[in-house]
């Protein structure tokens, strides 16, 4: 068996004339929690979409369980996706379904389990994220952190081999953040799954990740264990990990001469 459940091999992707990724190489070993980090707009979420087969690479390939994702037929991609669970940034819960029905959704769609078993499984999954008592609520009645946890319960509904997290800590209060952080690690180990976390929250991600990839300017700028990266003196990693305002990632968006811009208004 291939020790890596997901592999990105010389992967390039872009929109029209702008290349977002240029020759990305990453491996995601089974059973590990791997983080992809980088600034906003560096294409981290796009990498998850490439793994999930929602986007097609311009060059190179993403392999899941040894199979090239973009070469699969629709049925093939759907078969691969049944091995994956994904937690979207805002949860993406179905607003017309209750918490219970949201978690039951993948089971109803992909299995012929009897209602009694679906009931038990849904409550088990909700209990794992601490929200068994909220199963009758509608998504609009949940806080941001609760919605994220319900979405997590839904993502693990079919015990996937790969769990992908898109910015799981964004916009959460410190308590919810700690809860999600712990759940990611616990669920990964309990299910024997592989977790891929896309995030820019250094503190939380470094707490739970086994290995981290830094993406910048379309390439893997750095990689290593959280301890390695904390000590790294690479300018980009140093700026990112220590949250410095200026560095290789400039504070200012590319612009013309400041004085010229200010005086130019009068000239017009």
């Amino acid at each position, binding site marked *: 068996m291939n020790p890596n459940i997901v592999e990105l091999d010389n992967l390039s992707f872009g929109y029209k004339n702008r290349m977002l990724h240029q020759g990305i190489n990453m491996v995601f070993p089974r059973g590990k929690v791997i983080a992809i980090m980088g600034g906003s707009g560096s294409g981290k979420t796009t990498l998850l979409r490439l793994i999930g087969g*929602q986007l097609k690479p311009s060059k190179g390939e993403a392999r899941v369980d040894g199979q090239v994702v973009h070469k699969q037929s629709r049925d093939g991609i759907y078969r691969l996706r049944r091995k994956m669970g994904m937690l979207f940034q805002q949860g993406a819960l*179905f607003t017309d379904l209750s918490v219970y029905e949201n978690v039951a959704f993948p089971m109803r769609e992909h299995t012929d389990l009897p209602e009694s078993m679906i009931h038990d499984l849904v409550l088990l999954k909700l209990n794992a994220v601490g929200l068994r008592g909220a199963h009758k609520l509608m998504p609009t009645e949940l806080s941001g952190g609760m919605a994220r946890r319900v979405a997590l319960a839904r993502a693990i509904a079919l015990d996937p081999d790969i769990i992908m997290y898109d910015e799981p800590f964004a916009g959460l209060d410190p308590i919810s953040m700690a809860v999600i952080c712990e759940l990611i690690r616990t669920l990964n180990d309990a299910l024997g799954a592989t977790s891929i976390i896309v995030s820019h929250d250094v503190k939380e991600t470094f707490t739970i990740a086994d290995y981290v990839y830094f993406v910048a300017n379309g390439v893997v700028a750095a990689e290593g264990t959280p301890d390695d990266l904390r000590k790294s003196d690479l300018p980009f990693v140093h700026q990112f990990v220590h949250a410095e305002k200026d560095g290789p990632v400039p504070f200012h968006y590319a612009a013309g001469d400041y004085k010229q811009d200010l005086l130019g208004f009068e000239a017009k």
Partner: protein
Amino acid sequence: MIKSNLFVGLIRTLRGIGHDFSKRIWRLGAGARLFGLTLAYSGESFRRFHLTIREVYFTGVLSLIIILVSAFFVGMVLALQGYYTLQKYGSSESIGVLVALSLLRELGPVVTALLFAGRAGTAITAEIGLMKATEQLSAMEMMAVSPISRVIAPRFWAGVIAMPVLATLFSMVGILGGYLVAVPLIGVDAGAFWSQMQANVDWQFDILNGVIKSLVFGVACTMIALFEGYDAPPTAEGVSRATTRTVVTSSLAILGLDFVLTSFMISM
């Protein structure tokens, strides 16, 4: 210098027209593709027919109030206007025929479709646009569930089922409204009102053709609403623009199709 500016302006205008035209052709193709996919996935959606029934409730049953109240007033106004004109020619007993034919052939299907586009069509576009903006459709895709079979096809068939039923109810209630104005209020003979209607309304040419029209309007209106929602940019502005386009495009499509269908029906 002026000539050259004019030339540049002309080129820009032509380019703009060409761009706008090719965009519209592209959208027409994308809409046709979605229609084809909807038909192709209908089998999967029929297996979960409860979803279609649920949508019939949302698009059809919840539109009943506006449709029936409008029908009542339209019927009453038709009777008033019709009586005013017919009495000049001494044929006020034909008021029943005038009301029935106007409603069954034209006003029933057309006004129902226009109201349906405004009430149910906008709701469909906004719902699907927001599902896209909140990543619910992406989440469904990642769960290996096709949004076309789960979201689009049930709503499409619900619209196709609901429209002829609503149009028929519109005509029935409109005739009732016409009766109430013509007979108890104006004093037209009830026997003449009903018997002339019975003698002059043809089952196939008037009633069946009206139903066929509303069926075609159902396909057009629902598909436009679905496409606009599915194609909407995932932003607040994108969804609001798509909702407006649904009403404008549906209304024009209904009136255009009405002319084409009427021409065919009369020539046959």
